[in-house]
């Protein structure tokens, strides 16, 4: 943090001023698909695997993330 402050003028980007550099949609799309897939996988394994549906048999994953599943608001048991 301290090193950031000392060279703030040269490199730090203002957070409250608009950046007129919107990334073209075509460049975002492949990463958007990637991001949604990763998000889906993470949420699926924490939120639903070995509950409503199972890719792997047994209850190991379900039981391991049991508390997180309940506390993140997913239906459980």
């Amino acid at each position, binding site marked *: 943090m301290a090193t950031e402050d000392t060279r703030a003028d040269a*490199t*730090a*980007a*203002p*957070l*409250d*001023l*608009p*950046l*007129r*550099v*919107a*990334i073209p*949609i075509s*460049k*975002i799309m*492949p*990463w*958007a698909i*990637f*991001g*949604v897939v*990763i*998000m*889906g*996988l*993470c*949420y699926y*394994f*924490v*939120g*639903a695997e070995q*509950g*409503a*549906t199972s890719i792997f048999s047994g*209850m*190991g994953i379900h*039981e*391991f*993330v*049991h*508390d*997180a*599943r*309940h*506390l*993140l*608001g*997913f*239906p*459980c*048991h």
Partner: protein
Amino acid sequence: MVGQLVFRGFIVGILAGLLAFGWARTFGEPAVNVAINFESAQDAAKAAAAVAAGKPRPAEDPVIFSRTVQSGIGLLTGMVVAGAGLGCLFAVLFAFANGRMGKLGPGPTSILIAFFGLMSVYVVPMLKYPANPPSVGEPATIKYRTGLYFLMMAISIAATLGALRLRRSLVPRYGAWNGSLLALGAYLVVIAAAYVGLPGINEVPRAFPAVTLWNFRVASFGIQIVLWGTLGIVFGYVGARTAQTARL
């Protein structure tokens, strides 16, 4: 550049998951433990009743992981994995929104994404199907409940995206204030219709302590605020810096 954003979103997401773990451990676990003790007492009473009636003792659930593991490394893993996934999605949303929000800079853009994300991914589905502690919920209906929960989440996300798009088309005609309120009105109609149309789920056992249920749900809400809040605040800095270095 988008790849860099997504990677950084992943890292910020892990940080958010760690903080959410701290919140969950402090405010969530006490309620989870009360609920599990309640469940054990219910199971023991059922088993005793079965034996008294001359029926065989019902099989107990095998213990795969101890409570120490579930409330420690298991909870940590769950929070960090969920946070990392959320971080990837957040970075993509930021890439779409940054520079397309009129006069808003990366900081406020990031905060707005966090607000809309929290509302549409958690708050609106939760108001219909609230988070439940262990021992609330029939095992037999898990498929039904999970399906309804994800359906409500999908409707909620679609309604938010639809309303934002509608707002964009209404603002030139009706002005920023009236256009936004009209879009908000349309959004509320869709959400209210889903609340009315989808079946309710109420499986809280009669004897379940109300205070525990309340504490659990408030803790669950807090965890989501920590997750989305961390992403919203930290990603403003990360996104601004990434955009800056990519331009130079």
